[in-house]
């Protein structure tokens, strides 16, 4: 049985106006119908551009945001329907690691107090000594010295702070850890340390991760399954290697091709799809396929009006595109001025011209 199952989860934030009486004038469709499944022991990676709703989705699982509709089934119970107190208690099994290591640690608490707080809230460990023993154990696990107990967050380096954040989640012995951009705030040379740690821990403790990141390389490195989000919805989901080998959704393709690779040889020789235009606002998402405003493969009518659903193409490879198959086999060529294709040898030709002249 899968550990976590999201069913058509929606999180809409009301947009309020007014000084004295807030009046809702619209909604931000931050997460707009996401369904996914995470198997126990797996790492699910979530990527997507800024503002597409990754964080919101992660928080929705923990109900740190109110869920507008949908189900969050964790180990058989629908969290979305739990009363507050029970939800609070079930948070022991669901933990979170935050993007900003310093910001997520209360500057006024020492490490022991930070780590003990969750234990106290869930009645883990009968007394202080017992808790301390546990804390020391976990600290060792994440690679922090025991003398860190009485120190304060600001006395640690970025990487160490993130380890504290991880330790804080670990002391509760959770089943699922949601990592919201766990390494984005860290320097390149430190990122690897934390990624290794996360992987190590998963192996030794059998953890399940939902990893949110915008760095595709990082996500790919640690994830078993990857979901690509665009404007509040999943557009593609596939096992890690498969996704990179055969991206099917036009957005995923553009994304992949835009990621710079630290290798001049590769950089000089690969073909890239450059999207035109910017991400639409989630408060006012486009109709039909959310990506149609930027899609080089956009087709008339259907893309504008009909919202594609995630459909399984191959083994565990799900794509939300009406024309995924056609694009893959080349039946449909990229058209319109929505993208340019950068072809090596410094020659860049607008796709549109090509298409126009070709027609």
């Amino acid at each position, binding site marked *: 049985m899968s550990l976590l199952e999201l069913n058509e989860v929606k999180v809409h934030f009301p947009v309020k106006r*007014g*000084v*004295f*009486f807030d009046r809702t004038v619209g909604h931000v469709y931050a997460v707009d119908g996401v369904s996914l499944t995470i198997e126990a022991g797996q790492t699910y990676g979530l990527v997507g551009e800024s503002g597409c709703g990754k964080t919101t989705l992660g928080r929705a699982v923990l109900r740190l945001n109110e869920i507008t509709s949908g189900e969050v089934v964790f180990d058989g119970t629908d969290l979305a329907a739990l009363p507050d107190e029970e939800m609070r208690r079930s948070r022991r099994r669901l933990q979170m690691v935050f993007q900003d290591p310093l910001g997520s640690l209360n500057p006024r608490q020492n490490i022991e107090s930070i780590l003990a707080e969750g234990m106290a809230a869930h009645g883990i460990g009968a007394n202080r000594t017992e808790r301390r023993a546990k804390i020391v154990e976990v600290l060792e696990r994440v690679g922090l010295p025991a003398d860190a107990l009485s120190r304060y967050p600001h006395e640690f380096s970025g990487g160490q702070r993130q380890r504290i954040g991880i330790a804080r989640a670990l002391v509760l012995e959770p089943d699922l850890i949601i990592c919201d951009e766990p390494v984005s705030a860290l320097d390149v040379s430190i990122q690897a340390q934390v990624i290794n740690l996360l992987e190590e821990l998963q192996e030794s403790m059998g953890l399940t991760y939902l990893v949110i990141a915008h760095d595709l390389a990082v996500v790919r490195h640690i994830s078993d399954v990857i979901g690509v989000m665009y404007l509040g919805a999943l557009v593609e989901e596939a096992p890690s290697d498969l996704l990179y080998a055969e991206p099917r959704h036009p957005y995923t393709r553009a994304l992949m091709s835009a990621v710079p690779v630290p290798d001049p040889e590769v950089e000089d020789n690969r073909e890239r799809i450059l999207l035109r235009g910017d991400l639409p606002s989630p408060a006012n998402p486009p109709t039909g396929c959310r990506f149609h405003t930027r899609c080089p493969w956009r087709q008339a009518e259907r893309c504008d009006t009909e919202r594609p659903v995630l459909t399984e193409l191959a083994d565990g490879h799900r794509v939300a595109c009406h024309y995924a198959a056609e694009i893959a086999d080349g039946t449909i060529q990229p058209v319109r001025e929505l993208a340019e294709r950068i072809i090596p040898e410094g020659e860049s030709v607008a796709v549109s011209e090509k298409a126009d002249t070709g027609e």
Partner: protein
Amino acid sequence: MLRLVVRRLLQLIPTLFGLTVLLFIWIHRLPGGPAWALLGERGNEAARRQIEEQLGLNEPLLVQYGRWLRRLFELDLGNSVKTGQPVWDEFTLRFPATFELGVTALLFAVIIGIPLGYFAARRRGSWLDVTAVSGSLLGICVPVFFLAMILRSIFAVNLGWLPSGGRLTTGIDATDVTGFAVLDGVLTGEFDASWDAIQHLILPGLALASIPLAVVVRITRASVLEVLSEDYVRTAESKGLRKSVVRGRHVLRNALLPVVTTVGLLTGSLLSGAVLTESAFSFGGIGSFIRQAISDRDYPVLMGFILFIALLYMLINLVVDLTYGLIDPRVRVN
């Protein structure tokens, strides 16, 4: 825009209503009544009863409030117990003085405060900065009544440069048109009178400005310091723009945003400051009238005044909000 204003105005109503209920109870719970104030040593029990009966003060508070409210709907604030004149007339009579004084004080605060705060920030840590900051703090730290006395003593008594009090020199030819002394002089061509009125405004204006001035200096300084460290100032510098453009368009314009809000909020403190300042300079505005009304337990005046002040205060804040929207495109309403 208009709709927003209307909505904001409508939203004022419940607040004001709550305010009047609270205040009515509060004011009428003040010990003593107007009788003693009216008659002084000559007052006695019988007179007190008589006055209270006449004023309806012997009735239940709820009844009194109901009556007050009903009259309010007829836009009637009642009559002052002390002067026997309609509260509204008393206000319109005295408001111009307070308004002139308040504007003068604000002008002082803004005209002196902003440059001072600006230069203090530019030369942060220099003697100019320390002087400007502590000098303006001094403004906060000197009790207004004491400042008033010192100012009078120096500029009126010893130097004789400025009048010691009042709004106009007695006997000067001034025709009353609008009640605003300076404006009247201009309207009627009696520029002497305008000039005279301005002279009379300087000392009380300074005294009243002391606190707002200090606040403006502090806010401007803090705000300029903050803006100076903003990235867009660096961008402007990187474009090689002239100093004046960088400072004017990029630094000052942004730095003044919080100053605008502050100035709006200051009007509240200006009004309470006016209570002391007007008495100290016998300026005859609302402030000194109210001070008297408190000790006279002049209920209708107090109710009317506080309603008036609250309304004014909220209106000013509305105006500030709207102005803010005008000068800061980020909060502009569509």
